[in-house]
């Protein structure tokens, strides 16, 4: 009986110490398009994520108002978004921006 407990305790310790509970997610990323490159097929919205908020076609928009703003552009026929990236942006914000735009069903290309 005691040997059984020993083994079970060892197994428990092993699994407690090795297991990780973090779950991962993935986002596809495309290499940035060159400035003045290929001609666009449909009108694109220029979106520039800032550290807090956005610049949509040059107009400052808060994170909360983004869905609504993009919806109005979508209704006008915009399907693509050109995501402007500068050196002040970090990876966290870039990936956040990418997925929040993709959730709305927009095609995102990155420009720099």
């Amino acid at each position: 009986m005691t040997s059984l407990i020993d083994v079970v305790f060892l197994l428990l310790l092993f699994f407690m110490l090795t297991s990780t509970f973090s779950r991962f997610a993935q986002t596809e990323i495309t290499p940035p398009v060159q400035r003045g490159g290929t001609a666009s097929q449909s009108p694109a919205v220029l979106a520039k994520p800032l550290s807090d908020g956005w610049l949509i076609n040059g107009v400052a928009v808060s994170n909360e108002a983004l869905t609504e703003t993009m919806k109005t552009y979508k209704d006008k026929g915009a399907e693509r978004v050109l995501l402007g990236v500068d050196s002040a942006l970090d990876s966290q914000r870039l990936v956040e921006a990418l997925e929040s735009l993709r959730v709305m069903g927009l095609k995102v290309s990155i420009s720099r």
Partner: protein
Amino acid sequence: MLRMERPSKPRQMENTITLINIVFLMLIFFLIAGTIAPTAAPEVEAIKTSEAEEAQQEKMLGIRVDGTMIYEGRETTAEAYLAALNAEATDAGEEPVIRLLPDRALPATELLDIVSTLHEAGGGKIVVFSERAQP
């Protein structure tokens, strides 16, 4: 005198059985709830997301804040990583997918530079891994 000694024995048995029950339950919990996988790069603090599609943790190329890359615990370069990835994909007979795990503080332009380099070097699909926030 003899009577005094007897009652203590069965009680001990009972204790061990409840103990085993609890330990077994904990064991089963950790077996099911946890996943055993080597951490890609312990010094990389993954990006946190809430909306991206969930994915299985697989072999990832960690990118530290300073832009250096780490793969399977060793420092590497984009070329060396691609060569290793392509060799593995050919062995398994599947399309190679580049899985990046950048540090959340890595400048976005540096991340895009790495993505461009990997794309030009012949990489196929490129995905960025992030840690999914617990609901």
